């Protein structure tokens, strides 16, 4: 009888909250690229005599994330000290939460492989402070073998929300999806930039494997996965390792393992530093955190429309495809941009097309954020309205669009610089132009009139010439119509 193995995965996600200042002092949280140890003060350096003061914004962001994760927010909570020695932790304790986390008992839906929604339980969300960063003088940046180590406390004290999931995930793909949903959510809420590579969203995985014969291996905690891909690969590797061990009848020990991305393996990191008794106890420097009456309700009312709700609405209200709704609601800026275009009069479908193809292409090509996009939603909409009213062809619009991107110019100057006029070429003007083309291509006209252009290829060729001459400013159906009537006439 062959054995069946079921992976059981739970994730701990640390999300850096996008507050302007740190969680317990007024230092800036903007540490990326800052000169080491410049965003620091006596408090976040842990100097004797300093005392923490809780940043209300961090609480607000934590509550917002908790509510969006369908958690129950505690009205009264407190902070604990988590004690351990390490040079990146200047007080030798981290102010965190322990028995009374900010929020508990939530869930979030992911889409499983068969397309159905599957709720993943959220055990808790709690607030804590980030540690500083050690820079070791070794080639791999790890402590082992380093002759010198440096500490940068700029990151120390940046607020973190730790989101702990239930062990509800079954596959690496699900784990990946769960993380991307959380990432999308925190970005939507504006509480974090959720950037895994920069480390503002960090994932640790707990994984164990259940065997159909009743054995259930101990769990391993995997760290150091810096991308969604790394997460998936590490879990795949780890599942294989567990299954192999179980198949061979070996005992799996509970341990922390380090993902090595270049080698594609996990390595046990059993070391003295890992064997911790954190000696948690209530932080005496901070009074209990009691949220004012109505605070949670107020935050709930202030929650923006969540991405999945917005996606459904885009489908239902604007008649967009599943794919278009997903793409346009992937991030809040794009969804807002889209709806702003509609407010300015753009038709839902054409606007969706334009954003999904042209705008996203430009963003991707230039690695640009939508907020830095040079053309406003209003101008995009104006262009789309002209297309909707057949005053501007797709081809002409693209030319004008490129011009605006390159020169950051407004629509009308771009059009005049491209020598494209609103309303395009139509009526008598178009008829004259078609006539001119026909005259210049007498031989082709003759072939058509002799009835030899059976599949209409020649006529299409003529139409193409007209369109090129008008530089897309003519309505293609009008061109066809004029062309047909002129060819018939003689």
């Amino acid at each position, binding site marked *: 009888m062959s054995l069946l193995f079921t992976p059981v995965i739970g994730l701990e996600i640390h999300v850096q909250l996008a507050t302007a200042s740190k969680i317990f002092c007024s230092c800036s949280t903007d540490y990326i690229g800052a000169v080491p140890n410049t965003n620091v003060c006596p408090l976040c350096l842990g*100097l*004797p005599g300093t*005392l923490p003061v809780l940043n209300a914004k961090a609480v607000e962001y934590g509550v917002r994330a908790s509510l969006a994760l369908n958690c129950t927010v505690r009205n009264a909570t407190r902070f604990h000290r988590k004690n351990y*020695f390490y*040079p990146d932790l200047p*007080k030798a304790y981290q102010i965190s939460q322990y028995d009374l986390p900010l929020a508990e008992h939530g869930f979030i839906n992911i889409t499983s492989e068969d397309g159905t929604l599957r709720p993943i339980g959220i055990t808790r969300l709690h607030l804590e402070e980030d540690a500083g960063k050690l820079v070791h003088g070794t080639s791999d940046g790890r402590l082992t073998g380093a002759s010198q180590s440096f*500490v940068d406390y700029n990151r120390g004290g940046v607020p973190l929300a730790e989101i702990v999931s239930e062990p509800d995930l079954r596959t690496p793909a699900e784990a990946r999806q769960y993380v991307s949903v959380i990432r999308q959510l925190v970005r939507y809420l504006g509480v974090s930039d959720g950037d895994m590579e920069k480390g503002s969203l960090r994932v640790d995985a707990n994984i164990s494997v259940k065997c159909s014969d009743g054995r259930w291996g101990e769990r391993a905690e995997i760290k150091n996965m810096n991308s969604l891909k790394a997460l998936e690969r590490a879990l795949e590797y780890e599942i294989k390792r567990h299954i192999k061990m179980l198949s061979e009848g070996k005992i799996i020990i509970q341990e922390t393992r380090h993902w090595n991305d270049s080698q594609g393996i996990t390595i046990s990191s059993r070391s003295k530093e890992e064997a911790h*008794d954190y000696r948690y106890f209530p932080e005496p420097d901070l*009074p209990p955190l009691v949220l004012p009456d109505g605070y949670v309700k107020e935050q709930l009312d202030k929650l923006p429309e969540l991405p999945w709700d917005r996606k459904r609405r885009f489908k239902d209200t604007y008649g967009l495809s599943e794919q278009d709704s997903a793409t346009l609601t992937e991030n809040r800026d794009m969804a807002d941009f889209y709806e702003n275009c509609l407010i300015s009069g753009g038709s839902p479908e054409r606007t969706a097309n334009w954003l999904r193809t042209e705008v996203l292409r430009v963003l991707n090509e230039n690695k640009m954020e939508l907020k830095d996009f040079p053309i406003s939603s209003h101008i995009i909409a104006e262009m789309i309205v002209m297309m909707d009213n057949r005053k501007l062809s797709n081809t002409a619009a693209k030319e004008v669009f490129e011009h605006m991107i390159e020169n950051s110019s407004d629509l009308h100057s771009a059009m005049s610089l491209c020598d494209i006029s609103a309303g395009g070429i139509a009526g008598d003007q178009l008829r004259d132009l078609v006539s001119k083309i026909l005259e210049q291509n007498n031989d082709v006209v003759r072939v058509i009139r002799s009835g030899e252009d059976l599949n209409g290829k020649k006529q299409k060729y003529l139409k193409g010439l007209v369109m090129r001459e008008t530089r897309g400013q003519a309505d293609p159906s009008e061109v066809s119509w004029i062309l047909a009537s002129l060819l018939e006439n003689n």
Partner: protein
Amino acid sequence: MDFYRLSAHEICRKVKSGEITARETIESSLERINSLEKGLNALITRVDERALEKADRVDRMLSAGEDPGLLAGVPVVIKDNMCVQGIRTTCASRILGDWKPPFTATVVAELEKEGAIVLGKANMDEFAMGSSTEHSAFGPCSNPWDPDRVPGGSSGGSAASVAAGYAPISLGSDTGGSIRQPAAFCGTCGLKPTYGLVSRWGLVAFASSLDQIGPFARSIEDIALTLQVISKPDPRDSTCNPSKRPDYQSVLDQSSLKEKKVGIVKEFMDYDIDPEVREALEKTIEVARSEGAEIVELSLPVMVRYGLATYYIIAPAEASSNLARYDGVRYGISSEEEDLMDMYLKIRGDGFGEEVKRRILTGTYVLSSGYYDAYYLTAQKVRQIMTSEFKEAFSRVDTIIMPTAPTPAFRKGELLDDPIQMYMADVFTLPINMAGLPGLSLNAGYSRKGLPLGVQLIGPKWGEMQLLAAASVLERSFGPSLIAGGDQ
């Protein structure tokens, strides 16, 4: 001129009226320090030049017609666990080396804003752990009334400075009696305010839920004045009460204790205390009675029975965490070792004294998994019960009178090898910190050997007004505290 004899009130008045200059008062204090400090060892760091410069600034302000503040030209001594920017802060430990804080404690900033002049940083038990100021990396401090005896602790240097006349006022910190017990041993007044009345920003933490800064002075009037200055709300300390403080000096002219109820603790009346301390206590109760107070006998069994044990779980637990930051990485003494753990062991092994190590070990133990519930959690519950016990007591009385310490100042070395006996020196004071209440030690006379005898007054939470009022009535009978070695 012996300006060092003057109270803070008198100095401020005379300086403002132009009778004396701030420089003269500081020079008089420095002279006094020069003549006594060798024997006392009350100061770890002196800042004579800085003090004279600040004095000149006060004098210049006055000649320019500006008001230097409520403490114009008043010399003060600061316990060496409070940060003053640019002045070495040691906590009487080796581990901090010559660390100079880049910021100033709120209390010191408030004093200086009112024209007070810092003379130096006072000797203490290392990290405020001790009751004798013998556990100092800078050597023991002596009692100004008898150099063979201890000044009490941990704020022994601050108490000795005021008793010896270095300064009319000083600041100490009190986690389990560290202001009141040395005040009693040195014959001064010492107030431990309600937890949360005075900002702890800039006070190097020992046990954060118990630590409170307070003043020493030779009169209740000066205690009230100093408290007024240092007890402002401070947004940098989340445990500091944000409400406006009352005018503490307004209650000092209260004429009697008529219609007041003064509690005495039944269990302590049977306690094994020094006969002369007991006499002083009984005398105090008599004075209270004669001033019109009704004496009410109270029973505080939990506090009496479990106070000490509970304290020696909670305070070391918090200390073990608060003192973990001294790791040699950022400041203080440093050491180059191959291995991180070796560095920690070296720094902390060399840097901390025996008593501090003892408490860190105790605290680490009681917080460890498997022991937390039995020790720390149980202690927190007992602390709750003690707090309710006091609350109930203060529904019946306005003030409680009890001894400050079981004995007068003991001899140097006498209890050094017996930590439990040393801990017992705080048996009457530390429950007050556990309940977060204000406590004040007042000099109630002298033993036949000439040692000061203190009594302790306890008030309800935020009850500094009634505490100071009662103390000022009693003080009228006892007279203000004397300067040791001064021939008044």
